[in-house]
């Protein structure tokens, strides 16, 4: 929330740890403390979910200005604020809102003792699982225990045994001994994805989290509960025991599973991706992403990945080096003129790659340029029915009016022998209805893929490209937001980032060379296309910028905004 947006009327003065700050009326105490750089430890509070106030970790000392009797003037301190009367008992900072003149102490003896007490209670039955717990290293129980805990246990009795290693869904394992009963997972499932499967049963120290006996946690957003679980009670089967979190490098990127373009963090170590999790962007995906998109990275590990450029000799492909492959592709493609040549690009390409395809098309002058349409099932949350992540980019950069509409006529003209050469980038044509007969009748088929497929098998020149986490670039999502894709790992073997391949092809065809890095491509593109005017690759930033108005809205964000306006959540 930006304070300057509100008029002076709506601001209140709050004292946090002896400093006065102004925050909008209705701000939660915990958020006010955050703005004053006084982080209040918490478990159950999550800004995107309602606040049941059940963990008591956020207890702070609170005080109010006295209510003067009629005619009496309040006593003022040196700053002109009314003197605060401190309350003898603590309050939770997560569910209470501030009022004018309120005082909050996060570091007083009372607040510290409260935290220490809550930590001690939480650890009474907690197992000594850190060495085998995937959460270790990013566990708030570990962190707060070091910061606010006692360092040793006074508990001599036997710990309560609870269910461990329980399959509660196809992708998630539950360990009840580690659960701190914060109910974040319960609220997420109920409030955000309308799948109320979780609940607490039993009482006191025997309370456990469980799923409905006849149901499983299997909605397509289930893995978000693993992210918001502050401890290692919910762990992902996919990530389970694969890598300790402190070894991973985190790269801010995008999911390219559909046109939503959810912001992500990709965790990798030594050239291998281990997990992908959502990154908060309140204009795109809130703080969530779907499970399907999360698992997308596995396609990069496909054993059929193409790793070397190849040229077809007779019936067989042989591997060649890049200059030879590019030279051959350029020589073959330039033999054909106008109507004889077609280019089929992809809605999975970045704007930069599409732009280089466009300049290539300007030199080669093909009869048609199109991309492949990729319709799928969407839902009422984030997942979009357009499974191409950058159709809007293709519309703007490659001037595709109606994606996929020309594929039929391309096929027809191949059969009629009017089209003799085809450049295919990132698509398997057999998968889009082309027949092997049609492709084999071409005199020249140049294609670029990341995974071996029938089209690559029929191609005269095969150029191995990079997967979405192996390259940089920008994309425009369904709501018209320009966002940046980042490189987490290197493409395998000799394969290259697609913009480099296209740039080399351009150079081999037209001889021009004004580009040394990806940012130059964007700059060139920004000088040609009005939609990118004034932007550069770095100016897109981590959260992206709106460049188009597509008229689309995100159902999940709309519901979130409604809950914010009702005061249910902070947002």
């Amino acid at each position, binding site marked *: 929330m930006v304070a300057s947006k509100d008029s002076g009327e709506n601001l209140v003065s709050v004292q946090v740890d002896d400093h006065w700050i102004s925050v909008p009326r209705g701000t939660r105490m915990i958020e006010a403390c955050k703005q004053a750089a006084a982080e209040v430890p918490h478990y159950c509070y999550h800004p995107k979910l309602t606040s049941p106030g059940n963990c008591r970790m956020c207890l702070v000392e609170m005080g109010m200005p006295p209510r003067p009797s009629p005619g009496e003037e309040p006593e003022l301190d040196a700053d002109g604020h009314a003197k605060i009367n401190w309350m003898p008992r603590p309050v939770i900072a997560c569910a209470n809102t501030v009022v004018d003149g309120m005082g909050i102490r996060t570091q007083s003896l009372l607040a510290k003792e409260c935290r220490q007490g809550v930590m001690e209670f939480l650890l009474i039955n907690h*197992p*000594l699982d850190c060495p085998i717990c995937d959460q270790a290293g990013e566990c708030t129980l570990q962190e707060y225990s070091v910061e606010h805990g006692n360092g040793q246990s006074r508990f001599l009795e036997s710990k309560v045994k609870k269910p*461990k*290693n329980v399959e509660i869904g196809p992708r998630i394992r539950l360990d009840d001994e580690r659960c701190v009963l914060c109910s974040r997972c319960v609220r997420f499932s109920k409030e955000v994805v309308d799948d109320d499967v979780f609940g607490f049963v039993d009482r006191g120290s025997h309370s456990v989290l469980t799923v409905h006996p006849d149901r499983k946690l299997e909605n397509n957003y289930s893995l978000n509960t693993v992210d918001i679980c502050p401890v290692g009670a919910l762990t992902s089967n996919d990530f389970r*025991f694969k890598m300790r979190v402190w070894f991973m490098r985190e790269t801010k990127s995008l999911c390219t599973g559909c046109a939503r373009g959810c912001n992500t963090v990709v965790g990798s170590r030594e050239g291998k991706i281990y997990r992908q999790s959502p990154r908060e962007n309140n204009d795109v995906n809130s703080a969530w992403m779907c499970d399907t998109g999360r698992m997308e990275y596995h396609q990069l590990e496909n054993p059929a990945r193409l790793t070397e450029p190849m040229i077809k000799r007779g019936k067989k492909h042989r591997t060649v080096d890049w200059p030879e492959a590019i030279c051959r592709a350029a020589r073959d493609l330039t033999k054909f003129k106008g109507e004889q040549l077609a280019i089929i690009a992809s809605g999975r390409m970045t704007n930069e790659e599409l732009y280089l395809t466009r300049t290539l098309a300007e030199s080669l002058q093909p009869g048609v340029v199109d991309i492949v349409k990729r319709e799928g099932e969407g839902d009422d949350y984030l997942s979009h029915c357009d499974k191409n992540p950058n159709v809007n980019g293709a519309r703007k950069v490659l001037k595709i009016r109606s994606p996929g509409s020309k594929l039929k006529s391309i096929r027809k003209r191949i059969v009629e022998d009017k089209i003799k050469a085809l450049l295919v980038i990132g698509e398997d044509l057999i998968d889009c209805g082309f027949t092997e007969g049609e492709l084999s009748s071409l005199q020249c088929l140049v294609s670029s893929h990341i995974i071996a497929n029938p089209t690559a098998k029929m191609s005269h020149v095969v150029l191995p490209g990079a997967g979405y986490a192996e390259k940089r670039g920008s994309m425009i999502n369904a709501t018209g937001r320009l966002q940046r894709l980042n490189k987490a790992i290197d493409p395998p073997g000799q394969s290259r980032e697609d913009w480099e391949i296209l740039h080399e092809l351009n150079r081999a065809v037209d001889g021009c060379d004004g580009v040394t890095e990806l940012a130059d491509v964007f700059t060139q593109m920004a000088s040609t296309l009005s939609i990118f005017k004034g932007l550069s690759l770095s100016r897109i930033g981590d959260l992206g910028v709106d460049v188009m108005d597509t008229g689309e809205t995100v159902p999940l964000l709309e519901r979130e905004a409604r809950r914010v306006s009702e005061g249910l959540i902070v947002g």
Partner: protein
Amino acid sequence: MPIVVQRPRLTIAEKCYFPAIMKGLRITLGHAIRILLRKKKVTMQYPEAKWDDHLPEHYRGAPALVTDEHDRERCVSCQLCEFICPPRAITIIPEEIPAGDEWQKVEKRPKIFDIDMIRCIYCGMCEEVCPEQAIFLRKDYAITGVSREEMVHDKKKLYEIGGRREGLVNKWNELK
């Protein structure tokens, strides 16, 4: 604050080194004579004979993995030693203990555990960091091999060197 160390004043005899050289020669000659007269042994037929019995308790030799009193491998593959190891000698790939295994409740164990003994500097950090008391520096110091591969100790070799250690950690007892 700087500490000023005074240079010692040397006598003329000390300055010309000659007396010191003579002193050294006398000791060497003394040993030689005593060995020739078979009065004393100052060398050892290494490697047939070894000095091992005299190694101090705190001696740090090759790091090795140990099993517990039930022959359970103690290491749970937490990878803390891999993290702490200064020369990055340790490589671990964890795996899940399959259902039905006697120690299924431990959940996790190393599938691969390699220590590259060309890299290891015998610092003992791995032993110190291990939360499960699973890795110890043993008294083996003569680690040889004719190829780089041979110098990598795998899980089997590590348990061979390490053997069994009882007690220490009892968190995986019947209460768990």
